[in-house]
């Protein structure tokens, strides 16, 4: 944070987190934790990623993750070609008892998703029209000079994290990270998630075109979630480094 010299206490005139920011922060936090947990469970059931429209155990994978007993299980009977061409599409019956907890995993994932989508959409609307994004989140033009960027980067690399201000006086890289999550990664998660819904894509087939098919959307969904998890880890480390108790207080009761 360039403006506030590292020290204790809040500089004069620094705002506290607005109540709607605090409420939406914790709803979305809970939602994202449940989404990450259930999302991982869902991925464990089929830990193969593909590109394009279709992909399954009988087609080549882009990436296969060793995260459950379903990893490379190859439990199928002899494949039979559907057509004359023996090298064409085949059918095979699964003989392996896979790990699958999607009964609750999927329903909990979609329940949690409602708590991301509805408060998230309200947060975006209020943030956009209420001036929150303009005044607190979006980096200002005068901050975007090579000198500022360089200094904030060096400070972070040396782990010199200023003490919590208890409100929205964000540093430059902090603003960049928040902007990336709010305007790019979270909307991408929702859009790729909806692209995996057969009912949604029947009404909005443009989503399939946008991401290049169901499996591409699923793969983007996975990598975007990895970015989001990385963000959460860095965010928590920064909260701890800048004064955990004070930060939690500021985001919960406000100051």
């Amino acid at each position, binding site marked *: 944070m360039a403006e506030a010299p590292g020290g204790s206490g809040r500089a004069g005139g620094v705002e506290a987190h607005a109540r*709607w920011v605090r409420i939406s922060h914790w709803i979305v936090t809970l939602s994202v934790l449940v989404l990450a947990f259930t999302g991982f469970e869902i991925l464990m059931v089929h830990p*193969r990623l593909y590109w394009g429209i279709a992909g399954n155990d009988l087609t080549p994978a882009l990436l296969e993750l060793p995260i459950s007993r379903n990893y490379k299980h190859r439990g199928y009977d002899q494949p039979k070609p559907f057509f004359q061409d023996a090298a064409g*599409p085949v*059918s095979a019956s699964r003989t392996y008892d896979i790990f699958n907890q*999607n009964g609750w995993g999927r329903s909990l994932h979609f329940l949690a998703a409602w708590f991301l989508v509805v408060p998230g959409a309200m947060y975006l609307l209020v943030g956009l029209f209420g001036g929150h994004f303009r005044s607190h989140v979006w980096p200002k033009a005068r901050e975007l000079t090579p000198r500022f960027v360089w200094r904030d980067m060096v400070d972070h690399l040396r782990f010199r994290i200023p003490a919590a201000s208890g409100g929205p006086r964000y540093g430059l890289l902090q603003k960049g990270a928040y902007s990336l999550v709010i305007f790019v990664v979270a909307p991408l998660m929702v859009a790729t998630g909806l692209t995996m819904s057969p009912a949604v894509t029947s009404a909005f087939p443009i989503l399939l075109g946008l991401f290049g098919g169901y499996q591409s959307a699923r793969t983007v969904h996975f990598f975007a979630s990895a970015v989001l998890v990385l963000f959460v880890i860095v965010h928590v480390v920064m909260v701890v480094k800048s004064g955990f108790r004070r930060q939690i207080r500021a985001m919960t009761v406000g100051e």
Partner: protein
Amino acid sequence: MKNSGLITRRGAIIAGLASVGGFALARRFPKVLPPTCGNVLRMGDSFTYGAQRALLGQSLVKEYSLQDVTSFPATGTTDPGVTVKSELGESYRRLQAGAFADWRLSVEGSVARPRTFSLADLKQFPSRTQITRHTCEEGWTAIGQWTGVPLSAVLDAAGILPTGRFVVFHSYDDWVDSIDMLDALHPQTILAYGMNGRDLPIQHGAPVRLRVERQIGYKSMKYLKRIVVADKFDDGGKKGNIQNGWAWYTGI
């Protein structure tokens, strides 16, 4: 806190709008939502169902061309004659031995003319062929070509009574599942007897399976035996999805 009065009012307005929205949705769909039995996961499923029905309307899923057809794993039951230990498995074995000539699909419940259809009867109806994406809850997808008769044509032949709201399916692998009338009358909801230009293979649900293209794969029930038009939601008991911990509506 600065501006605390303003922020409180704004928060109250947002909270108010959100709750009014929730109530409006619940009031609009009191009779068509399946009971949740107090299960929070099933309440979430019902909310998704109501929201998708309210916002998405009737639209067709994307259809593909023959070159797009992919390999297709057969999962779940792949031969009721082998794995189903009850009387059902045995009758399936007998039907299979006779190339399904004796197979009959019973259509009953809230219909004016309950009757049974043989495979030849179903093939008398104008057929529909569609190349669609099968989306499994596990995360994989496959593209296949399906040939069959629109469910709506079969239901029309039996004459749906105006009280009918759901269509319940019973299968030879001893499952019971249902769809609402909107999905039942959807033009791409078919009783498929052909796959990729041939008779439907055993492992994919011979002789006839359901295709419900706007939902996840497990709603496209295999090995059909009986269709019942119902006035009320029927969770299928111990043979249905809900009591086995799975969502009834899977448009997502």
